């Protein structure tokens, strides 16, 4: 472990930020282009994980454990969110027989 960590020494913080930004953007694009509610949900998870990674990277960079504690809380939150979200999707499917979000177009006027 120690040696692995040492190899990381040289990785610039910018690269972590860039990686997170790219994955976050991929998540955004996923939300935008897909119509399947579950896939959209997965894209959201991607975005959450991008943020988690960034938080962990900053935590290490600053030598402050708070960032990692935050990641832990975000994971707890994500678990709760997924439980509720998937339950909602199941309900939607039961009612409309579809999980295409374009079917759910009552949210207007």
């Amino acid at each position, binding site marked *: 472990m120690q040696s692995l960590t040492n190899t990381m020494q040289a990785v610039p913080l910018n690269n972590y930020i860039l990686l997170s930004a790219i994955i976050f953007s991929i998540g955004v694009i996923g*939300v935008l282009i897909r119509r399947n509610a579950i896939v959209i949900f997965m894209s959201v998870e991607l975005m959450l994980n991008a943020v988690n990674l960034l938080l962990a990277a900053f935590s290490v960079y600053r030598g402050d454990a708070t960032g990692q504690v935050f990641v832990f809380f975000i994971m707890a939150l994500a678990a709760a969110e997924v439980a509720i979200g998937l339950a909602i999707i199941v309900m939607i499917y039961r009612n409309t027989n579809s999980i295409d*979000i374009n079917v759910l*177009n*009552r949210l207007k*006027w």
Partner: protein
Amino acid sequence: MDKYIWLIPLLPLAGFIINGIGRNSLSKNTIGFIASLLVFASFALSVGAFLQIKSTGLPINVTVFDWFAVDNFKVPFSFLVDQLSSIMLLIITGVGFLIHLYSIGYMHDDNGFGKFFAYLNLFVFFMLLLVMGSNYLIMFIGWEGVGLCSYLLIGFWYTNPSYADAAKKAFVMNRIGDLGFLIGIFLIFTYFGSITYADVFSKAAGMHSKDAPFVLITLMLFVGAVGKSAQLPLFTWLPDAMAGPTPVSALIHAATMVTAGIYMIARSNILFTMAPDTMEVIAIVGLVTATFAALIALTQTDIKKVLAYSTVSQLGYMFLGLGVGAYTGAFFHVLTHAFFKALLFLGAGSVIHAVSGEQDMRNMGGLKGKLPITFITMLVGTIAISGIPPFAGFFSKDEILAHAFMHSTTFYVVGVITAMFTSFYMFRMLYLTFYGKFRGTTEQEHHLHESPSNMTIPLIILAILSAVGGFIGVPESLGGHHELEHFLAPVFERSTKIMGEQTLPKNTEWVLMAVSVLGAIAALGYAYSKYVKKADIPVAETEERPALVSLSYHKFYIDELYDTLIRKPLDALSVFLYKVVDLLGIDDFINGLGKGTIEASKGLRLLQTGNVGSYIFMMIIGIIAILVYSFISIHNIK
């Protein structure tokens, strides 16, 4: 006596409250009894106050409570009873009591009996406030209050739309005057720093006539008086006010309320004396009104209308008197006029009562035998108003005319001619009503009867007063002492000092008297020959009249003139404001805002597709926008 002064106005107010609350539960006799008794009690107290002032010569000044105080400006609710107001008190409560008594008989069959007496008591209360107040604000309360009661009583039979209109007309016309009065009070406060009579008058007397805008102040006060006392150009409400029950016409629109303007000017005499220009205006307005109203009265056929125009004309005389500086004379005329005009109105009421509500003199006649008491008392009243000695009207009218002569011969000549008109139309009324044959329906003829005693007794008392009332002011040229003038002297002291004592040689005065008396008798004779000898009856409504007669009959088309000059342009303006400014301008603007919002929303709601994907897309765009903005701002900071 000072302790009980506040009871004088309070008793009628108590009557108003009792009768107002109990108007449906108390019996008619009780209501009439309470109302009359309370006014009589006020009268008794007034007599007491009068006697005290007569013996001591000092005014009674009582502060009941401090009404309000703002900084240095204090308005106490206080009463001032001096020589002037004590006589007014006697007129109001005395004549008021007689009219209350009369009304018990006159209104006996009316459903609104309790309401009527409640209003009447309220009127007496406000009228007493008006004359007893020791500052302009209290006077103004009374001033507005009597206007209100006048409105209520003119529109007493409000189910008749034209009566209700007459009430509204009176109210609106009075408001015009009230505004002037109010502005006058404001001006007085601005320049004298007080509205209490004592302060204002003593300050004004010490000033030079250029120290304060006396002309403006007095003109404003005069506007108020014009409205309340029915002078040109605001007189048209008074004839219409005859829509009210006859006792109301007698009390409010002849004896008391309409003289409030004269009282107010007499009260403020020092201010007016300081403004000779206003005095001139008052004299001219009074004279023109007197003549004008007399001309109209010449051809009227409604018995109450004749009396109404006669009232306007007599009020004109009083203003003429005020205008030429004869404050005492004008006030003397207020006093005698209260007697004989109340008498005439009550007599007319008695006649109307007898002929079952008929008011048109063309359908009367020959009532002399059927209504002897009414006839005799009205004859006394007619003689008194015509200015034939030794009845009351002669002395007061003569005093005014004498002063008018001192001021300007023209005023005198016009005044005498008007007096002849007065004599003519009054005797015309008398002859048409009581002489000749009865011209009404046979049904009315069967119904003819003399009025009950509670109506005739007030007539008799008033007739006696009309006959002898003049003797309190017999001029020195006729060997009298003019007690009234001496009694009132303290009130007009300051003005007299400024104007100086004016006297005519006795010979001149005799000639003037002879001229006016002969003129009146000549007019009487002409009326006799025309309406009794030739039995000339005014033609019916639809028939042709000679041009001048027609002009007079139609009241010189004054109402129509106002209609064309004021009401129609106002109507047109209102229609313009309604149709163009309101409907096109404001409404369209407001509706346009609404419509614009609706249209914009119709366009904008298309953005809300209901599609979650598009919402997210917009959210992303928003986030990008925010990021770009913060990026730029960070960039700028660097």
